[in-house]
């Protein structure tokens, strides 16, 4: 379960539904873009801004021209839909991703390591 290395991205993802998309890593899905083109392939990575990286992609552009690409990067803003495979349980995926973030955040135990949310000293 690869969580982003950036604290900022982690919190953004944690508080939005992008985390569901991040849970789709290594699933084969279809991403429909804003301009009516579609990209079907395996999701390599989704970041907090919904930028999607796909591999082994069948890209149908808005005119209908189909082409095959090894890798495709879609800017988050250009995403309209992401089809979620039937075998993915939405709730469970979100919870798994949240747990992964939780593990990363509290890594090293209570009193060790750099803390994401330092406890106030009073």
């Amino acid at each position, binding site marked *: 379960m690869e969580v982003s290395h950036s604290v900022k991205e982690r919190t953004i993802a*944690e*508080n*939005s*539904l*992008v*985390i*569901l*998309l991040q849970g789709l890593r290594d699933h084969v899905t279809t991403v429909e873009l*804003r301009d*009516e083109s579609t990209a079907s392939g395996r999701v390599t990575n989704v970041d907090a801004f*919904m930028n999607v990286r796909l591999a082994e992609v069948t890209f149908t552009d*808005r*005119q*209908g021209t189909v082409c095959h690409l090894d890798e495709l990067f879609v800017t*988050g*803003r250009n*995403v*309209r*839909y*992401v*089809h*979620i*495979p*039937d075998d*993915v349980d*939405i*709730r469970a995926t*979100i*919870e798994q991703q*949240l747990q992964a*973030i*939780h593990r990363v955040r509290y890594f090293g135990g*209570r009193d060790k390591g750099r803390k994401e*949310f*330092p*406890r*106030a000293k*009073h």
Partner: protein
Amino acid sequence: RGAPAADPERIQRLRSLMVNAGPEQAAAEGGAARRRRAPRNVLTRMPLHEGSPLGELHRCVRDGVKINVHIRTFKGLRGVCTGFLVAFDKFWNMALTDVDETYRKPVLGKAFYVEPQLTLTRLFDRLKLQESSVKKGADSKTVSEELVPTNDSQTLGWKAGSGRGRAEDERERQKRLSRAGEKKMPGDSLHVATRGEADVGSGTAHTEGASAGGTQARSQSRRKKRPKVDYQQVFTRHINQIFIRGENVLLVHLAH
């Protein structure tokens, strides 16, 4: 960094209580400090919007209310997704299940300027028309058009009367007919549709009947001189699970 947020209040509370029961209060609070940080994540944020429109969305998640999400194209309505909401967030990103989407590809180019605004009524009228054309045995590649001058009055009140939209949709779907792709783009008062540009394929494969029904055509039918690709074709499809990015959502309509 949200942890320090509650602490000033806490310190004040402690100070005010110090005369009476300072020590044990401090101990109790110290124990609670670790648990105080209630997890704040997308799932816990969903119920927090009570009283606001997003709170209504949460009600849909909780009660399994079927919703119709209107999707936007760069200008105007693209179509409707109807389904059950599983999760949402403050950006109106939504995860839907058991989705039926009815949509039309956007019209581009010259026709764009003469296109009347696409409304839900027109969308479903168009769909209805298509289904009836297919049923009549017309060749699926050359859909026979039933062109009729736009009856604007029927759709004028669409945006305003969105309250009536839900029940009306179904009724209109069942009984109304015969509008050839009159679609209005909001914000422009442009009228009367015609052919679109050549950049939208006529994927007829996707068309299927969303609602069967009688076909009383109120309009004259006019056969095209040459088989023309229909750019105003309405598509419907079923998707089991879909994620919609919030910025594409026009409005969300709850079905009772």
